[in-house]
């Protein structure tokens, strides 16, 4: 009797069939699992990230916002699960990444222009192609500073502008931004935020933005992805669809205020939980 009760359960757990996301999904995350020091950070995490949208990731401290985008970008290995970009793996996908700490992201031994051109050189582009792309980028960013200087000779905002240009140079399918404004002063934050919005309107690149500033997160977003405390789940995905270009006036629109308030409520609910 006992023996039967304690017998190992070898029931065939069927592998759950792959469920594709809704139409317009760019990044599909299924069954993502990641342990940190023996504790689950993400367990069987599913998420669909839409194409050509900006998704802001927001959540309590330590819930792994940056870890999430780093796992998607392949900078942090995952324990198990699947991440697909339009059905392709990361290996076949061009991505761009903007770090919070621009000082340690740029290469100080290269001139700024060579930093920006570096991903193109990695792709083996010819000098003419690189030059053409550089001219395009300079025009679309309306660069007012001297790109022939070394990164450390530029201001923080100029360095971060350059690192966004570097990330966008190879025309990535997805742009990851890990708190790109946190190390900048307010003036530069506003400036780069506008630049980012402009670039997005020009190119429609899918963007994943981690932010600790709720106003900024909502302001730039098409979707606000709110996460729970660990083990991290999706708390809520709030759509926010005010037309672009968004301006200072947007900040006082009822729809903006409503989305921000709702985000804050969900955030507080999750923090207390």
């Amino acid at each position: 009797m006992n023996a039967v009760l304690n017998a190992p359960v070898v029931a065939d757990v069927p592998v759950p069939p792959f469920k594709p996301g809704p139409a317009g999904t760019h990044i599909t995350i299924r069954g993502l699992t990641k342990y940190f020091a023996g504790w689950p950070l993400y367990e069987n995490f599913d998420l669909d990230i839409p194409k050509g949208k900006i998704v802001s990731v927001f959540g309590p401290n330590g819930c792994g916002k940056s870890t999430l985008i780093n796992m998607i970008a392949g900078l942090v290995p995952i324990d198990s699960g699947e991440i697909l970009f339009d059905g392709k793996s990361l290996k076949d996908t061009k991505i761009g990444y903007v770090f919070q700490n621009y000082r340690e992201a740029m290469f100080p031994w290269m001139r700024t222009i060579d930093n920006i051109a570096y991903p193109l050189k990695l792709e083996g582009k010819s000098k003419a192609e690189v030059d053409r792309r550089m001219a395009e980028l300079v025009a679309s960013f309306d660069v007012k500073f001297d790109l022939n200087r070394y990164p450390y000779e530029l201001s923080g905002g100029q360095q971060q502008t350059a690192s966004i240009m570097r990330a966008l140079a190879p025309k990535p399918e997805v742009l990851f931004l890990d708190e790109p404004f946190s190390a900048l002063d307010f003036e530069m934050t506003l400036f780069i935020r506008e630049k980012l919005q402009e670039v997005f309107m020009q190119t429609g690149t899918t963007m994943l933005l981690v932010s600790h500033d709720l106003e900024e997160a909502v302001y730039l977003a098409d979707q606000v992805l709110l996460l729970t405390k660990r083990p991290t789940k999706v708390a809520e995905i709030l759509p926010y669809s005010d037309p672009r270009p968004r301006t200072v006036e947007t900040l006082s629109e009822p729809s903006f205020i409503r989305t921000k308030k709702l985000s804050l409520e969900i955030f507080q609910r999750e923090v207390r939980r």
Partner: protein
Amino acid sequence: MADSSSVNAPVAAAPWSAPAVPAAAAPRKVNWGRALPFIGPVLLFIVWDFTVRFGAIKAILLPPPAETVTTLINGLAGGPLLKDFLVTLWRTTQAFLIAAVVGVPLGVVLGSAEKAYRSVEFLIDFFRSTPSSALIPLFLMIFGVSDINKVAIAAFGALLIVVFNSAYGVINARKQRVMAAKVMGASRWQIFKDVLVWESLQPSFVGLRSAVSMALVIVIVAEMFIGSDSGLGNRIINSQQVMNVRDMYASILAAGVLGYALNILFLVAERRIVHWSGR
């Protein structure tokens, strides 16, 4: 109460206006900052001179400073001191070049394969901590009493310093720059040549600078004690044997000049080549 305070008020107010007068004279300031580096040497020169002048130390043991400096300058301006100076410089340069050419690439490669470095770390640390002069007899057995011997042992001592610094430069490379290259699709080789090598430049320079000092120290010691007929070390020992103190001190100062000049040379080179250092 109210009365007394109103009486006090004008009294207190009077001295208040006073500081305005001396303040007018204040803004003149002499900048002594530039003279500071000269104070130490000049003081030493004076103390040295007085010590000899008043006989605190016999002139047969310590020559007056002015004479010593004259001997140094005359010697370096084409005298026999110059020949020994150049011999020592040449030996140090040879030893240093061997250490640099072997050590930097070796250190960078070991550093980028951290497991490889860990497996030889003890050896490097052990022999780095062993005074190289203690190995002179061993090198004597291998290379005999020769010029090569002096260069070889100096190169050995300097090599370990270079390897250690270059390897740690790579190991401690800013992880984020490596990640940035990785996310842009750089291969391992591209990360190595475009990021790790550059990241290790600054610590490598620290290593090279210490290495050149180490090479000079060992060359001088080797010239003193391994049968030698040239070089500053040999000259110092020889003039000491015959109590030619003036020449001895001049040779010591020449060795100091050489060490200091090499150090400055490397500082300047580092500032020019690793232009981003510290920014």
